[in-house]
């Protein structure tokens, strides 16, 4: 049958998944043929070649574009990868071959707006049927139908179909996935694909094509609170444009934006666009846009812009469900690059709670690795705080990938915020920053005037390792070079700001570090490079350093660790000095690090590079 169909404008990306031999290519070939989407004469040509070679024609031959996927000798000049049906083009995201199938299936499904999951009626629900169903759910493909194929091989029996439907629905129900339809078909013979089957009068539901027609274009996320991960900052001309794709919600000129995790804020001055008249004044979910702000704040790729009433979570840890595709297994305590929306940060696997067997969702505990094609529940810990959401509330900011060496090796969804020990201080910093009263002079004005950015150099280490001496030397050197630097010594706080505390209270690292951190925060706001040591905290320097970091955030902290003999420095140390110290050499290394981080310009007197993405 030929349907007269004109090519429509709307596209829907679909993926066909399921066990390897359950008939994906046949279903595709049939969809193309029945919707008259094949180029002129191709069907006849392939049929003729089959006849000539004495083999049965199969619809699968129409689709397999690569030689290796085909039976020998049947070549198709052009394989189209879409078909048309009732006002829409369906674009098939194809996964080549059988090798590395899961990886390709996942890549395809992550791009898909809808999916068809195939199950062979004769073979029933197989391991891959379950795994693919589970992964569709994990990947966020909410629209899918289950196609029970090869019904001709089971005599079109209703009980076989219903048995599969019952078993598979129960399985999907465990993770709350609900398919829009179960459809009994024979892709080979064309039952219930485009045409209703005469062999299965007991089935009155939608055909495959009717089911596809019922799938919606991506659901509107514009009604959610705003989430715009910053993609880049451009300064090609007079405009300094913050770009990003709005992941959820909407924004408009005049809106007050908060960037997390830096807590910086500004109002939207304009929405920028090329060749759009009149200039737009708003944007909504899905759009890749650019805005300019009324205040020249320094925001970076990876921060998430939102409105103040609905902020994303910020932490250094979260719990997640992850699938692993890496060539080498995922290992506990190994370093990986984490990517959440546009943020990239080093992370490690703090714990692997359990491996999930996708066959029966049984859980296996006590593993230190996750192997290729396994799914696991784990906790990730990041080097610096990250803004994110739970995947149940926000799709795009609630999922992540892990990069191992050069490749994306795994992906997952965030299921739970893990509270870290900095939570209270971070909340204090957030509330304080939101209420911060600013003068007319901006942070960027000061940086331009001074020729450098504000920063904290924090020297940690045990007693008598030369921390104070190095701090003094560094302050002197910086000022001699024309920088604005200041030595913040803990002793000076003790007798003034901390004079209200009794001896016992002064022994409490938390409160002492909080006060110290808030003073450092004030000083960085003045544009200074603060040089300090953790001397007042004695051996509790690790805890204190972490608190100071949280409170001065987002000012860069250059952590320097000194020890007499080799020892493990605190996490995130930038410069490690062990053994007898060459103080001139040490000073030079710290200054290099300040340059590398973009705090200082490469040459004295030159304007610094502020790492704007231009």
């Amino acid at each position, binding site marked *: 049958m030929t349907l007269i169909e004109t090519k429509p404008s709307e596209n829907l990306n679909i993926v066909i998944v399921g066990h390897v031999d359950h008939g994906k290519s046949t279903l595709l070939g049939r969809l193309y043929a029945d919707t008259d989407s094949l180029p002129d004469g191709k069907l006849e040509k392939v049929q003729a070649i089959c006849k000539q070679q004495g083999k049965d024609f199969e619809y699968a031959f129409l689709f397999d574009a690569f030689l290796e996927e085909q039976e020998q000798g049947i070549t198709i*000049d052009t394989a189209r990868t879409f078909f048309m049906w009732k006002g829409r083009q369906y674009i098939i995201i194809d996964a080549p071959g059988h090798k590395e199938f899961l990886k390709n299936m996942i890549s395809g499904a992550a791009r898909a707006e809808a999916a068809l999951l195939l199950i062979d009626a004769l073979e029933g629900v197989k391991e891959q049927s379950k795994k693919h169903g589970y992964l569709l759910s994990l990947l966020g493909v909410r629209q899918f139908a289950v196609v029970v194929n090869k019904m001709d091989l089971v005599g079109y029996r209703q009980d076989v179909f219903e048995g599969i439907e019952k078993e598979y629905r129960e399985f999907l129900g465990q993770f709350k996935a609900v398919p829009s339809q179960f459809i009994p078909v024979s892709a080979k013979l064309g039952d219930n694909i485009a045409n209703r089957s005469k062999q299965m009068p007991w089935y009155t539901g939608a055909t495959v094509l009717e089911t596809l027609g019922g799938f919606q274009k991506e659901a509107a996320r514009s009604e959610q609170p705003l989430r715009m991960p910053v993609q880049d900052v451009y300064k090609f001309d007079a405009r300094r444009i913050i770009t990003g794709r709005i992941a959820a919600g909407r924004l408009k000129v005049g809106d007050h934006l908060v960037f997390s995790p830096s807590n910086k804020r500004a109002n939207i001055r304009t929405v920028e666009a090329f060749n759009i008249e009149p200039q737009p004044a708003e944007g909504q979910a899905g759009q890749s846009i650019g805005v300019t702000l009324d205040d020249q704040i320094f925001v970076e790729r990876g921060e998430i812009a939102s409105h103040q009433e609905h902020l994303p979570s910020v932490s250094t840890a979260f719990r997640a469900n992850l699938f692993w595709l890496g060539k080498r297994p995922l290992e506990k305590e190994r370093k990986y690059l984490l990517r959440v929306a546009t943020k990239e940060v080093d992370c490690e696997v703090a714990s692997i709670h359990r491996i999930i067997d996708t066959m029966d969702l049984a859980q296996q505990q006590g593993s230190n690795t996750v192997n290729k094609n396994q799914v696991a529940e784990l906790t990730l810990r990041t080097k610096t705080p990250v803004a994110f959401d739970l995947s149940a509330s926000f799709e795009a900011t609630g999922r992540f990938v892990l990069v191992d060496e050069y490749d994306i090796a795994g992906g997952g969804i965030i299921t739970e915020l893990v509270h870290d020990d900095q939570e209270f201080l971070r909340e204090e910093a957030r509330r304080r920053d939101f209420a911060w009263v600013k003068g007319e002079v901006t942070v960027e004005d000061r940086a331009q005037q001074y020729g450098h950015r504000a920063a904290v150099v924090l020297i940690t280490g045990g007693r008598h390792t030369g921390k104070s001496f190095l701090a003094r030397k560094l302050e002197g050197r910086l000022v001699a070079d024309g920088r604005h630097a200041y030595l913040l010594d803990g002793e000076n706080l003790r007798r003034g700001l901390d004079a209200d505390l009794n001896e016992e209270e002064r022994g409490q690292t938390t409160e002492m570090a909080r006060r110290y951190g808030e003073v450092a925060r004030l000083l960085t706001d003045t544009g200074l490079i603060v040089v300090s040591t953790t001397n007042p905290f004695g051996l509790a320097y690790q805890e204190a350093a972490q608190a100071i970091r949280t409170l001065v955030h987002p000012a860069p902290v250059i952590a320097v660790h000194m020890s007499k003999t080799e020892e493990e420095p605190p996490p995130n140390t930038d410069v490690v000095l062990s053994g007898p110290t060459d103080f001139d050499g040490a000073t030079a290394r710290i200054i290099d690090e300040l340059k590398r981080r973009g705090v200082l310009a490469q040459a004295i007197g030159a304007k610094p590079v502020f790492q704007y993405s231009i």
Partner: protein
Amino acid sequence: MKHLRQLEDQSVYILREAYKHFNNLAMLWSMGKDSTVLLWLARKAFFGHVPFPLLHVDTSYKIPAMIEYRDRLAREWRLNLVVGQNKEALAAGMNHTMGRVVCCTALKTNGLKQLLEHKGYTGVILGVRADEEGTRAKERYFSPRDKHGDWDFRDQPPELWDQYKTTFPPGTHIRIHPLLDWTEINIWEYIKLENIPFIDLYLDKGEGIRYRSLGCAPCTTPIKSTAKTVDEIIEELRHTTVAERSGRAQDEGRGMELLRKDGYM
């Protein structure tokens, strides 16, 4: 129009990712409808600027009108145009009569590889679309090429959501495909929507023929068509069942698969 803006948003996102992650980035421009739309999308993404060079691999057999059009736009849009050519092969007399795959490999694939190697580009943006032909349907948005520029379509890295492969070993490079989800009709609808200047070889000028896909003069034949406007092209495409690249000789047999495994566009 909404569907075109959705495609545009996705392509702009990909272009900005490419620009953020690759220090030595370039875009291939063949002056055809697809790569010209791609160029326009770059101007969208970067607010009127094109912050990387445009590469044209000149086989010397292009239709002359295409070269005129190239130079005019390069001037008007202030493009950084880099033209590469496999001069050695041309001096040795390479042409399509030596075999189409042989000629395409020498003048286009090798011409491109020479240019990439010479300039050290690590990211190359191309206007290929998944619906053009079978091998392109297997592509990723960010698709790695090995040290020889070859493509291992059987073992491609995963690509998840909006996260792309942006790190790669030294000596290799990444091909970036922002137009993967566009169809031929989308391209023309967008040209109309944005009023993008295109070469009039795509239109019938009264002889009842027009080009549907542009390549080298000897290996590209026009199709029978009376479409004189973009609207008429779109209308024609809505009804045709002839493949877009049926006028492209290199697609015959297994040509395209062999070419693309070797690093063809």
